[in-house]
């Protein structure tokens, strides 16, 4: 057994698990992957909404390809695409308006009027093709602008305003028709080379209309997703008030979105006029209905602020193929309208439900407990024969920054004995002077400053939860070192961005090793990772020399504290939920190997630091309870709990009275420091030895504590060996 244990990977086979490891291995494997896990991450994806629409499009296309003979014939595909082009252009225009938070019901009428005017100019006035096109596009812009002025500047409700212009534009078309139709009809069709090229011709074997559509989609997509104006349109649609507060000229943006709609409708009408040559004033009657269905079908929310140009194209294609398929099947006009209405109803209903419940659904299934097994914890009773026996060595610590700091996760001191600590407000405090009574904000970074360490140049390197790895120079200037690493190609969830950089240490070669506790949970949701207990974290290395970041170890359960060993050959990694510390060799004969340094601790491991006597300080942020140990072995139980019980009554890993322990180089635990009262140090997340004192930080604490160490540690400092010249002199 011992021999076998020695050959297996220590990260997976802790010493204490040997007896039951085969059973555990299966359970662990069984729970490692889960459909729910994939689903949860899938639903979170931005591209999920168009994915559903795309699936509908594929479904509709496949159905009709099979049901309607001739649907997939080359000629039919080409003519369907031509018809789609006109419709899709209008849908893109409508989509832009809908994304900006409005609606444009007048598209059908605009289309009809533009079509009429195009033929009028071409036939009666006899304008050349290019001039006609220009005039029609201009007319489209003017009509769109009228809508825009009504909505943006006269503050009319988009629905009513565009409904009125719907009637106006249609009325104008009818008037023109009564006046001109007889004379136009006498003239016959336009027999112009350019007109027929525009309507039914090709560009390098691709129909002109398709070329126009593809260009519009490309330009429109870049405009909407990459340009300032596009972002403004989306912002205004998402929240008009917030957009105004952000300094966006809301009226201008609204006006422009309606102008886009008018312009694209005019372009579509131009294509239609050239292709169909029809003077019917009833052209595009009820088109707004079909266009709106298409837009919503594409997954563009009617609430505004959410949508892209390709989505509008997907919706338009679906409606086009649907209408073409039904037409080829000779499903009567009224039935078709009915089918379209039912689709709109279903899609709008789903759209509302989806928009409303998506976040909730994700929340419901996102947390995915996995299987963890624990041996019984070592005793911590005050009278126990154990290094963990509770004492009160922390109870009377000297408070620093009491009531000034909020949540000092980590502390570090410089060579002038000034104390630096993070704060949950995103600040770095510096305490100096006698009894550290002078408090100043050294730097404001933002995010959640966690682990701190000096680099060799005297810069303070900081892990900032929610942001990444940052550096603050002695003058307090903040520099971003890195906020991304290489992405895991097979993961749905994008893990390239650093979500929860936690603690760091710097090796002798200057490389910064830091932990990212979880790639699945945001910094403020870190405790939910504890409910999961999955291998969501990683060890990352940033090399300041090459300014590159790479992931060293993947799939670690909540790696938290990081400390480079005294000999500089390995990195200790504290794994919070596993109550285990790993040793990862960065140099020497065991390079790149991982082994368990210490296991089955009585509490959840937080930061780790070197001690002056060649040992290591380890903070235990909370103490295990038998109940939650048991819960860890029963993922189904935890899942049921999350489903049935309100969130505030869930069992969490207990973040109660923690302690500090000292661990020898061989992994043996030597002693512990406790505050059983919980008054001074309810949670302990870090400690730092400096000049005979131990400074104690706590994520939820209102102070940094200091105790005097019995052992001789005078003169020891974690600060860089070469003292840096600081602008300020030490006072007192």
């Amino acid at each position, binding site marked *: 057994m011992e021999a076998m244990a020695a050959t297996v990977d220590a990260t997976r086979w802790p010493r204490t698990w040997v007896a039951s490891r085969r059973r555990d291995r299966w359970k662990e494997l069984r729970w490692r992957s889960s459909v729910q896990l994939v689903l949860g991450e899938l639903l979170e994806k931005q591209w999920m909404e168009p994915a559903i629409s795309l699936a509908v499009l594929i479904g509709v*296309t496949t159905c009709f390809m099979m049901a309607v003979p001739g649907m997939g014939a080359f000629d039919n595909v080409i003519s369907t695409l031509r018809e789609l082009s006109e419709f899709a252009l209008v849908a893109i225009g409508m989509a832009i308006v809908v994304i900006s938070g409005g609606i444009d019901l007048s598209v059908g009428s605009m289309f009809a009027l533009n079509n009429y005017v195009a033929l009028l100019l071409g036939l009666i006035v006899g304008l050349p093709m290019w001039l006609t096109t220009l005039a029609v596009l201009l007319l489209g812009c003017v009509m769109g602008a009228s809508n825009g002025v009504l909505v943006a500047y006269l503050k009319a409700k988009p629905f009513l305003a565009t409904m009125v212009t719907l009637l106006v534009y249609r009325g104008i078309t009818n008037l023109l028709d009564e006046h001109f139709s007889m004379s136009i009809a006498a003239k016959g*069709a336009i027999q112009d080379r350019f007109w027929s090229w525009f309507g039914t011709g090709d560009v390098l074997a691709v129909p002109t209309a398709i070329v126009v559509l593809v260009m519009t989609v490309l330009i429109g997509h870049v405009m909407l997703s990459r340009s300032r104006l596009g972002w403004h349109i989306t912002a205004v649609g998402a929240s008009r008030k917030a957009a105004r507060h952000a300094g966006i000229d809301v009226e201008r943006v609204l006006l422009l979105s309606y102008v886009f709609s008018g312009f694209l409708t005019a372009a579509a009408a131009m294509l239609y006029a050239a292709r169909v040559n029809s003077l019917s004033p009833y052209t595009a009657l009820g088109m707004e209905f079909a266009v709106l269905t298409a837009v919503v079908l594409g997954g563009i929310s009617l609430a505004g602020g959410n949508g892209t140009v390709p989505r509008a194209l997907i919706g338009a294609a679906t409606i086009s193929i649907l209408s073409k398929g039904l037409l080829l099947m000779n499903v009567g006009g009224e039935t078709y309208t009915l089918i379209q209405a039912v689709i709109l109803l279903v899609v709008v209903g789903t759209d509302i439900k989806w928009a409303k419940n998506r976040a909730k659904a994700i929340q419901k299934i996102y947390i995915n407990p996995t299987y963890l097994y624990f041996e019984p914890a070592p005793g911590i009773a005050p009278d126990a024969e154990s290094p963990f026996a509770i004492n009160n060595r922390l109870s009377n610590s000297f408070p620093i920054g009491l009531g000034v700091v909020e949540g000092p996760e980590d502390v570090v001191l410089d060579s002038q004995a000034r104390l630096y600590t993070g704060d949950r407000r995103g600040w770095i405090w510096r305490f100096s002077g006698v009894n550290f009574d002078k408090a100043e904000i050294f730097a404001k970074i933002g995010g959640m400053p966690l682990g701190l360490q000096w680099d060799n140049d005297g810069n303070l390197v900081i892990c900032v939860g929610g942001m990444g790895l940052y550096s603050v120079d002695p003058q307090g200037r903040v520099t971003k070192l890195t906020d991304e690493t290489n992405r895991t190609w097979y993961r749905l969830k994008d893990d390239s961005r650093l979500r929860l950089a936690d603690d760091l240490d710097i090796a002798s070669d200057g490389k910064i090793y830091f932990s990212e506790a979880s790639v699945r949970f945001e910094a403020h949701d870190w405790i939910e990772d504890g409910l999961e207990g999955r291998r969501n974290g990683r060890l990352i290395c940033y090399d300041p020399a090459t300014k590159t970041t790479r992931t060293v170890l993947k799939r670690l359960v909540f790696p938290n504290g990081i400390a480079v060993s005294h000999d500089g050959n390995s990195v200790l990694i504290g794994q919070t939920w596993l109550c285990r510390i790993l040793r990862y060799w960065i140099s020497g004969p065991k390079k790149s190997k991982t082994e368990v340094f210490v296991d089955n601790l009585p509490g959840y491991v937080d930061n780790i630091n070197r001690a002056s006597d060649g040992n290591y300080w380890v903070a235990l942020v909370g103490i295990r309870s038998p109940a939650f140990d048991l819960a860890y072995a029963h993922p189904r139980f935890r899942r049921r709990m999350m489903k049935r019980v309100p969130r505030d009554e869930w069992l969490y890993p207990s973040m109660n009275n923690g302690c500090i322990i000292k661990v020898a180089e061989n992994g043996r635990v030597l002693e512990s420091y406790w505050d059983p009262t919980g008054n001074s140090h309810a949670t302990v997340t870090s400690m730092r030895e400096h000049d005979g004192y131990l400074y104690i930080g706590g994520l939820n604490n209102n102070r940094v504590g200091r105790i005097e160490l019995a052992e001789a540690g005078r003169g020891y400092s974690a600060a860089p060996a070469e003292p840096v010249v600081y602008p300020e002199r030490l006072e007192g």
Partner: protein
Amino acid sequence: MHLLSKIAGVLGVFALVTGVAASSMTRAANSASDGGSCSNVPKPYATTEQFRDRFEKCVGGKTVAWVPLGMGTPLMAEWTYWIRNYANAYGMKFKMRDPNWDPTKQVAVVQAFINEKPDVLIVHNLDTGLVANLLKQANEKGIFVLQVNMESNYKSDAFVGGDAIGIGRLIAQDMVAQCGAGTAPSHEIALVAGDPNSGWTQQAWEGAGPVFKQHPEIKIVAHQFADWQRSKAYDISSTILKQHPNLCAIWSDWDQMAYGAARAVKAAGLESKVKVFTADSSTITCQGIGEGVFYQSYGYNVPEQGRQLMTLAAYLLQSGKPPGSSRTVIYAPVVKINRSNWNLPGMCYDGTGRVITVQYNDKGEVVRAPR
């Protein structure tokens, strides 16, 4: 977006491949049916068997595609009945798609039919320009194109219709007789026409316009278009009647639409004063004349047109001439239907094909519209 674009790419390729494969298959199928060419006209003394075989080869198994304006009226239903039944009788395949009065859809339907390449295409044109280019294309692609009642600017193999110019002239003359000089008290008339872009409306006015010009006493107080819609004709007529209560007559192009005008006249309580003139002879015509809301209508034997279309189709398929190489026009005989003959048997068709229509005037004569 990366994944999305990949999926879209794969799909695009898939669609293209299936599209190309399917189209080459249809093309192969088409060329197979073209293989039995009917360009060789049989010798005068060919055997009856040869004649029969030729009919089977040239007509049987061929496809006739029919594009009405929109179903839901006896006019289209009657044509459809006869085209479908004769297609069955000739052993032809029948295809119909309904654009439901939507110009965009009519274009799409005609385009789709051209893509499928039937042997005969029959179109009821929504307007003169709408599918003109497509009909030309169809002819060029080897499809015989027949038009019914409403002409396109493109004149294809055959046109079967009421003679709209002649009927227009007849109606104008009748209206002048009722409302012109020597009649009392009003010479005001109103025109509630169909669709100014349609062949029928244009041609009817071509026939009527000069007649009214010759009679300057006739005052056309309104010339509007109700787009073949009964409700719209009702609305327009109501307005006209309010403005011109002394109106002598209303002309409305088509009986289905004219019935709206007639109801408006009745609603205004003017049915004894305002005479409603119209054309076509579906049951609504006989009913309207019986009720006294229509003054008269010109019938042009719609059921006969359906049969004529199929006769011409069978003729063209056997003629040995390529599509687009001949132009034939068949005008239906017209008959004036009024109080004197509206209830004679078979005067009005009902869209089911069951009324054997024999339209004749009160003297029992089938007549010809004046040239």
